[in-house]
């Protein structure tokens, strides 16, 4: 008898708990009227900042020096996502390993997949390396929808910025003129900068390079580099001795002088390849924030192009 009473008592306590959950903390009221934007990566954050200016608060989940394929879905990100008005993602399954649980646990209806606050930047970009024919994991960690490192082409940056402008104007129509003006200014500055970058890279057009991961197809296409091989035998598969030997042979045959490595990969294999072939290892930054000085989208290309120029000049 005593036990039955206890059962009811406990059920009552639980029900009370549920109610307390629901009402104890009403959604935090927002003093400022800034739009809160969360992005998957720092590059998208940089673009959103360009357009949103002081009307938005932008934060990225991943850091610029982190491998965007392998981000941990830490609960601390949930605290940020739950109040976001807009979530901008890279898409093309880049974040498939960590973003879906964050979104579904965020308890934020605005940023659920398909909701108005969910923004897939890949929708606006030119996508390369969409696999043809059968797609299997014999090819490694392939992205069936195409290469997700598309932000490394200024043209795509501009396309995404335009999409962000339209989205922000839709969300805050009162500030549409402000966003349009910021976009126009960004477009003008980016075009100028791009002319400069292209001019700087022109002397090295068609140069052959090897990269660690397939992070650079858009960059290579835009700036006229020729990527002829990869340190990874397949995307996402660590270097194997056999592949490394083949790569060394190929680099010697083709006269490849540069190995481009992302900041989150181990330099042991690239260095040993460099020793064998006389090539130079260059750590290029695929994302804003990869180094402290890369604080925006322009500085990302400034940094990478300066590094490349320097490397090309010293490996003639």
């Amino acid at each position, binding site marked *: 008898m005593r036990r*039955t009473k206890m059962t009811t008592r*406990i059920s009552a306590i639980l029900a009370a708990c549920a109610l307390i959950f629901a009402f104890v*903390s009403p959604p935090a009221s927002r003093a400022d009227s800034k739009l809160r934007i969360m992005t998957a990566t720092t590059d998208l954050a940089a673009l959103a900042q360009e357009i949103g200016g002081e009307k938005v608060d932008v934060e990225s989940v991943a850091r610029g*020096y*982190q491998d965007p394929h*392998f981000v941990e879905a830490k609960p601390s990100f949930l605290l940020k996502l739950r109040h976001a008005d807009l979530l901008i993602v890279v898409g093309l399954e880049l974040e498939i390993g960590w973003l879906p649980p964050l979104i579904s646990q965020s308890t934020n209806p605005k940023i659920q997949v*398909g909701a*108005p606050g969910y923004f897939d930047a890949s*929708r606006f970009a030119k996508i390369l390396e969409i696999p043809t024919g059968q797609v299997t994991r014999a090819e490694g960690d392939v992205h069936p929808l195409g290469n997700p490192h598309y932000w490394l082409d200024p043209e795509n940056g501009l396309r995404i910025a335009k999409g962000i402008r339209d989205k922000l104007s839709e969300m805050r129509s009162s500030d549409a003129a402000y966003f349009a003006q910021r976009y126009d200014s960004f477009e003008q500055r980016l075009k100028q900068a791009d002319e400069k970058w292209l001019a700087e890279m022109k002397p090295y057009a068609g140069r052959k390079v090897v990269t660690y991961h397939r992070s650079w197809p858009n960059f290579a296409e835009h700036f006229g580099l020729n990527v002829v091989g990869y340190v990874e035998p397949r995307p996402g598969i660590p270097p194997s001795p056999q592949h490394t030997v083949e790569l060394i042979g190929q680099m010697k045959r083709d006269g490849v002088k540069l190995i481009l490595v992302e900041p*989150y990969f181990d330099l042991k294999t690239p260095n040993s390849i460099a020793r064998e072939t006389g090539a130079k290892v260059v750590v290029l930054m695929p994302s804003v924030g990869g180094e402290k000085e890369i604080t925006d989208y322009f500085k990302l290309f400034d940094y990478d192009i300066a590094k490349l120029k320097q490397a090309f000049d010293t490996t003639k």
Partner: protein
Amino acid sequence: MKRFSALSLVVLLSTSAYAQEKSSISGNQSPPSAGAAATAPEEVRIRALEEQVRTLAEEVALLRGELKTIRDTKPADPTTGTRLLLASTRIEPGVLPSSTSSTAPPIPAPEPQLAQTQSYGGATSNAKLLNPDISLIGDFIGTAGRNTISPSRSLELHESEVGLQAIIDPYARADAFISFGETGVNVEEGYVTFTSLPAGLLLKVGKMRAEFGKVNTIHNHALPFIDRPLVSNNLVGGEDGIDDAGISLSRFLPAPKNWFLQGTAQVYRGDSSDVFTSNRRQDVSVVGHLRLYRDLGESTNIDLGGSYARGHNTAGVGTTFDPANFLTNLYSADATLRWKPLRRSIYHSFLLRNEFFWSARDQLSPLNVFQTQHAFGLYSDAEYRVNRRWTLGGRFDRSGRATNASLTDTGFSGILTYWPSEFSQIRGQYRYGHLWDVPNDRYTNANEFLFQFLFVMGAHGAHPF
């Protein structure tokens, strides 16, 4: 089809209009009496008409282009979830004139991305359209050595777990994990999660692993070891654990800055392995969980939890006592320290986890007296990722038995994991156990070597952190 008929209508109209103009022009021109003064406005009119025809022709071309775009993009929409975006925003071709040789055609050409998606990715995207993410995880385990207390088979396909995961509608997603074992099929989990509730609530309904501590929530294939800790087997229902049909409600709770606090309350039917048994409909079991988390830096974080579970057991069934009075109360506390340097996250990481369990089980003593048996158990494990392919781990186990707390089993394990890729892993584990042998009434030692092959097919959704 509608588009097509509209298009042909425009073409028809434009041609007939053109013909009419022509005939009227020739008609006007035929009378030679018309003065020179009249020809000037006539010519203006003709020019205006020509202009009109040209606009019409352009419009036809434009419509044709659009039709082509529609045809091209229709089979190519790869992710259903993002359709809204596509509809609400217009995509335009690249606009940096300086960079590439501008090939902007007079009519809006299909966006390169879409065209490419159509020609290459179409089949794959189509196959996935509206289908859930489907995966299968094979878990093959082999055991060698001596264990007389809980012997396992020499070789077995321990489990094949099929996962089906999808977004149901704008308000919910669902996950189902069906496990095919050596002895039968079991819906390990199958629940819907309502993601868009007011007041920051997260509601799950279905069959699920209860939010009781850490190891209870983890699927077999995601465990850091081949087996579960001794304490899981002794106190918390073994491999299946507390896994039952029920309703779960959780919410973020107010916490000091930078702390994450989440509370979860769950109600289950009350049937979970040998832990809880529901003898009557009202014998539901309840689970409560509090989780406290904090980043200690960008690489290090600490994760603390406290859990409580309560349900009925079978100890009173078939006795003179009322079975409804026999309850099992479980308490657990867990602490996890994680370290993973962001710049080298795929090469190195470290995890240290401790979990403590207390069980208070109502039962009858050998003298048929109602008593509550208080048992305690714990495990402590550490894992270190040495490089991209190898992980080392160790675990210490100690646990009393739920029905007789004075019988304490002890053990330890060492494990080595090799990862050919993200989608497969090969493991070897050495396991020592100092276990109570009930029939012989003494302790006995178990020394075993276990190995495991795990492989993943398809798209298996990420596991919660």
